[in-house]
């Protein structure tokens, strides 16, 4: 039996899409906890794309990104109750797991973590072991798309992460800060500096792209 509450619209406001999505996710998670594979399908359709794209934009490695996304969804499917809606969105929770999986891969591959708080790391190359191209080399590449990705990969990883989360994925600042595990002000600072560096690499004018 459904609960029924007498109500008046004078005492109510329309639920925002985000609130409705959060409530929908709660229902799907409740079904998932009972082993409902269709609920996992629905959650996957909603959340897997952004998680995979976040990983791809960070590391540029399809296999690593798929593994990181897989880790996130296996955790979702098997660790019921680990996600706490009061602490953030489901998307942020999944992206956080993928981030940790990528960090583990980097530790294995390079014995260093580009996503540590070392903002001065000039390489931070997540795509591989090749050195980043110089700004001059980038400018020679006329194709904007290629140049942008090259420039993004030349940024320190923590700067790239801020750009990916906010400017490319258009996540809210609070969610981006949660995924990156940093304070909101730190995120803003990194974003500002990342835009400046990217603009310099592209010989473009910086500014707030949003």
């Amino acid at each position, binding site marked *: *039996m*459904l*609960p*029924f*509450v*007498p*109500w008046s619209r004078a*005492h*109510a*406001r*329309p*639920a925002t899409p985000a*609130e*409705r999505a*959060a*409530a*929908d996710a*709660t*229902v*799907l998670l*409740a079904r*998932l906890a009972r*082993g409902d594979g269709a*609920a*996992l*399908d629905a959650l996957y359709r909603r959340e*897997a*794309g952004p998680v*995979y*794209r976040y990983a*791809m*934009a960070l590391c540029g490695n*399809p296999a690593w990104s*798929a593994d990181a996304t*897989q880790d996130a*969804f*296996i955790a*979702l*499917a*098997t660790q019921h109750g680990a996600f706490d*809606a009061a602490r953030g969105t489901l998307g942020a929770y999944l992206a956080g797991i993928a981030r940790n999986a990528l960090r583990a891969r980097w530790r294995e591959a390079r014995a260093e973590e580009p996503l540590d708080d070392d903002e001065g790391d000039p390489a931070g190359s997540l795509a591989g072991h090749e050195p980043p191209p110089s700004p001059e080399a980038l400018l020679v590449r006329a194709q*904007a*798309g290629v*140049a*942008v990705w090259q420039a*993004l990969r030349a940024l320190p990883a923590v700067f790239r992460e801020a*750009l990916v989360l906010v*400017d490319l*994925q*258009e996540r809210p600042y609070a969610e981006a800060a949660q995924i990156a595990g940093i304070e909101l002000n730190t995120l803003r600072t990194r974003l500002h500096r990342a*835009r400046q560096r*990217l*603009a310099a690499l*592209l*010989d*473009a*004018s*910086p*500014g707030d*792209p949003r």
Partner: protein
Amino acid sequence: MNERIPLAQALREAARELENLQPPPAVLAAAQAALARAQPAPRRRPAWHGPVGWSLTWSVGWSGAAACAVVLAGSALLMLRPDPDAAGLSASWAHSARASGFVPVAPAERWADADGPAWLVSAEMPSERLAALGLPYDPAHAGERVRAELLMVSSGEVLAVRLIR
């Protein structure tokens, strides 16, 4: 070639390119397999070997208990009216205060039918009434009033509840 690209345009192009990427199907398959592995094997109900007539007694007893539970839950929910005093507050405290996640109180099947607009209704109630919604509460603070938001559809059906701290 030294053509200047506006940063915003460059980022838009990168975002568009990124948007086309999708994870390989094997990722979902692996997650589904993990979900299947994580489910406990179904437990067999032990056979009942009581005297003849006991099963009828048990059935009647449990039916009565279930009916009482339904009546109690219904009564508590009917008392859960929107607080008129909260009307002016709803917009402000709902956004300023910290809110928990939504807790579904309607069966999942009902959500599939609830395609219309949803509304958030602010309410205030004694914390003991949380139990009627199937939510946890601290008996030591049973008398205290808690604020909640009810996600409702136009018919007045409550789909989910979240507490405001």
